[in-house]
């Protein structure tokens, strides 16, 4: 903007400014700052609250920011925003009008800060930007909080009260109390009371009874901010200090509890991922005894099915994109299940009873499937989007719960629940169990065992595919997706006890929680290693897992 001005006028004004500056700097600025720095905010309302901004002293600017926040001036917010965004200018050398200008770079216009009126661009050499350092930005945050206290939106008011709580100062106490007098919303009131307490504590003149009450108000919050508040308390009377220390102890305890709950939640989240990955294997390996090393690739195929479904939605029904994940579930099940049946018919049925050969052949198959996906889709990660309804989070006490994780936890349990229902209540499940328990007997009772084998394997593979839909939400969809889960899946199934779905559930959750519990102590990688080693040792102690399927070979 300024570049467009001709050199002449600006140079002329620069000369003029120099003379004025010499004068003004001596007469105006100094007394003005003195007045502002000492005065309490409430006594300021009559004066020009913006005056201090023009001072070169950052302390003055900070005081001014405080003053503006309580001035009740309609322009206060705009000016503070401009200051925060480095858009506020004043004369380089003070002039009697104490000009304050906002350079709205987005709109490309200059405004008079006090009135909001559009003005011609001031000569750029005669103005300087008012620099906001950390101290000033902090003050702005508080000030904006104060302004927000009178917002019509309860959420904004509450946030503002929260902001004051987090950086309390004596200056905001009257404002908080003023707001309290009018506040109706109980949640906002509660926060305001906490903010008031914090302000009171920061004021050394508060009497002991009030301080004790304030400590207990703050302690009742029970979070990290409350702990910091209490911990920063200094120079308080002994009784107050003791009360604060006790409160801190309590808070520490409850914080520990929350962080413990958080670990459990993260553990459940990881556990549900493991459970999803292992659920299909619990069928193919656990029930059928087939060592399917291509199991991970079934998961991967499910993830790619999700990707394809989303592509279709993007192309043909972008409005319904939120439903793509739901649609992907049956698609992934059918695709992975069909491939599973194909694998069983063409490969695995020739290898029944030769577990080690099955292991090798299916490993070979996994290489082929990976390479096929790589040839078809490329080696790079594919973008699978999380629909809006699955993003976001909410708080439960001190716990942040992200929606997509929650969805996966619920989904994992739903899948396993469904699987158990299929095994228990459907004719297919009945036949599967019959074939598992006594193949020859089942065959002689007219069950087509090869068909049941194929269906069982298809079911396990289909479940793996469904797992892929969920895992696509949290992991990179690439040809290597499956490889990352195969060892974990086997660990879960073996750990839980082969052939026992409940065992699989419990093993997945245990491993998830132990893993997450170890992470803060040992770090993510070391934690995983420790878990692996623990499982290796565990399998050697109890080769049949946590919950071995009991029973005894039939005596001939």
């Amino acid at each position, binding site marked *: 903007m300024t570049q467009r001005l001709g050199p002449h006028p600006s140079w002329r004004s620069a000369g003029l400014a120099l003379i004025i500056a010499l004068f003004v700097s001596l007469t105006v600025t100094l007394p003005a700052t003195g007045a502002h720095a000492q005065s309490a905010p409430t006594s300021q309302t009559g004066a020009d609250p913006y005056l201090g901004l023009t001072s070169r002293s950052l302390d003055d600017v900070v005081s001014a920011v405080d003053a503006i926040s309580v001035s009740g001036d309609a322009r206060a917010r705009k000016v503070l925003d401009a200051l925060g965004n480095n858009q506020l200018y004043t004369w380089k050398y003070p002039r009697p009008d104490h000009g304050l200008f906002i350079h709205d770079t987005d709109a490309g216009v200059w405004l008079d800060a006090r009135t909001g009126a559009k003005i011609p661009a001031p000569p750029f050499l005669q103005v300087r930007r008012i620099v906001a350092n950390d101290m000033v930005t902090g003050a702005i945050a508080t000030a904006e909080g104060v302004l927000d206290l009178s917002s019509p939106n309860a959420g904004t008011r509450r946030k503002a009260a929260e902001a004051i709580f987090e950086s309390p100062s004596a200056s905001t106490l009257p404002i908080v109390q003023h707001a309290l007098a009018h506040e109706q919303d109980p949640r906002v009131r509660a926060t305001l009371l906490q903010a008031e307490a914090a302000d009171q504590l920061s004021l050394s003149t508060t009497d002991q009874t009030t301080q004790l009450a304030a400590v207990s108000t703050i302690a009742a919050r029970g979070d990290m901010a409350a702990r910091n508040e209490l911990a920063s308390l200094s120079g308080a009377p002994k009784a107050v200090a003791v009360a604060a220390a006790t409160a801190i102890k309590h808070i520490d305890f409850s914080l520990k509890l929350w962080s413990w709950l958080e670990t459990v939640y993260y553990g459940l989240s990881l556990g549900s991922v493991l459970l999803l990955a292992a659920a299909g294997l619990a069928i193919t390996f*656990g*029930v*059928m*005894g087939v*060592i399917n090393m291509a199991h991970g690739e079934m998961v991967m195929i499910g993830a790619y099915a999700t990707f394809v479904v989303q592509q279709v939605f993007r192309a043909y029904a972008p409005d319904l994109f939120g439903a793509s994940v739901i649609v992907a579930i049956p698609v992934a099940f059918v695709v992975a299940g069909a491939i599973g049946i194909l694998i069983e018919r063409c*490969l695995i049925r*020739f*290898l*029944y*009873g*030769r*577990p*080690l*050969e*099955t*292991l*090798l*052949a299916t*490993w*070979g*198959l*996994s*290489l*082929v*499937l*990976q*390479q*096929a996906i*790589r*040839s078809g889709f490329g080696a790079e990660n594919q973008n699978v989007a999380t629909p809006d309804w699955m993003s976001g989070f909410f708080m439960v006490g001190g716990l942040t719960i992200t929606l997509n994780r929650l969805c996966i936890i619920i989904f994992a349990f739903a899948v396993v629940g469904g699987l158990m229902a299929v095994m228990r209540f459907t004719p297919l499940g009945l036949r599967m169990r019959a074939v*598992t328990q*006594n*193949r020859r007997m089942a065959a002689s009772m007219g069950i087509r065992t090869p068909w049941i084998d194929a269906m069982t394997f298809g079911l396990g593979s289909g479940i793996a595919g469904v797992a892929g839909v969920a895992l696509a939400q949290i992991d990179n969809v690439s040809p290597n997706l499956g490889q990352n889960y195969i*060892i974990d899946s*086997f*660990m879960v199934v*073996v750990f839980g006890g*082969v*052939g*026992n779905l409940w065992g699989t559930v419990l093993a997945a959750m245990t491993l998830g929680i132990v893993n997450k519990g170890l992470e803060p102590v040992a770090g993510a*990688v*070391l934690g*995983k*290693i420790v878990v*692996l*080693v623990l*499982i*290796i040792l565990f*399998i*050697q*102690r109890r*080769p*049949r897992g946590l919950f*071995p*399927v009991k*029973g005894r*070979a*039939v*005596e*001939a």
Partner: protein
Amino acid sequence: MTRLSLTLTPVIIIGVAIILAILNLATPATSALHVSDFVVGLAGKYLCYALLALAVDLVWGFAGILTLGHAAFFALGGYCMGMYLTREIGARGVYANANLPDFMIFIGWKQLPWYWHGFAWFPFAMVMVLVVPAILAAVFGFLAFRSRVSGVYLSIITQALTYALLLAFFRNDMGFGGNNGMTDFKDIIGFPLNRSSTTTALMVISAIFTAAAFLFARWLVGSRYGQVLVAVRDAESRTRFLGYRPEYYKLVIWVVSAVIAGIGGALYVPQVGIINPGEFAPANSIEAVIWVAVGGRGTLSGAILGAVLVNFGKTVLTGALPGAWLYALGGLFILVTLFMPRGIMGTFGRRAGAETSLPTAHEKQGLAAIDGKAADLAEAGADIGDGEKTA
């Protein structure tokens, strides 16, 4: 075949190695007969793989332990050698620090960790090449065999073992160079690695070790110990009721096999010039199993043949059709297990000695066991061969 392959295999290995060496060193580069350093290097690499394959065949073919983690021992041997070679770089590294390898300086370490001491001394490093895999194998094997973990369970935990090591060696603070591993080696006991005479010498040494390991393995499986081992493979509980302790028999072969794999890894590193955690990848271990399956499980000479053939195929295919290699390897796994379970030597070598043939019978019993009660895999594994409950 037994007698013949006993003498023929080492003769072929060392003979081919010497011919390659002569053609590399004694002919001018322009000659049609000249064998380039690249080819010599490849041959050396294949021989290291052959050592790994021999190790796998000893435990899989003769003790029935399908290991999916033998690359771990290979890599450990390799790391021991890598540590020696790294110390041998001395002050010739980027940071020119004679006391600390470059990667340690890079992560801000001030002094050599205790477990690096001694590796600058070649004989110590070579002892470690044998001892480190042996100790890991002994501890793991003792725990696993004592508690009678067998069959696929054992396979899966061997894979978990190498996976855990993979993760561990990826960590920088293990002090083994993390992700990048160790590389940029200069020389081995004073011989520059980039000189073609060194390359050739390493290849010939690999051939000698391969031939020696083969003869040792033959002696081992031909001894009464080997007979008991096969008996354990075929009918473990029978041996137990005869008073043998199968866990000790397995442990011995397991440790021996780990040491052979470690030697393979140690010879491999100076020839390829790098060792990194990728060597621990579970896929590597499984690939080694397929070499043995292709060549013929339980034949020893087949393991060597399989390692060389499959890797030759890999070299050719990855050069010509990079995308096709995984298809070929995957297909190989499937076809061999389906149509050629005895491998090349098992199928064409016929007249295999009694102790080297495939344990088809016990697998049939395994089938019965799984048919009967698939859920009870662990016991099926443990009972493979005795089968007294499955009739």
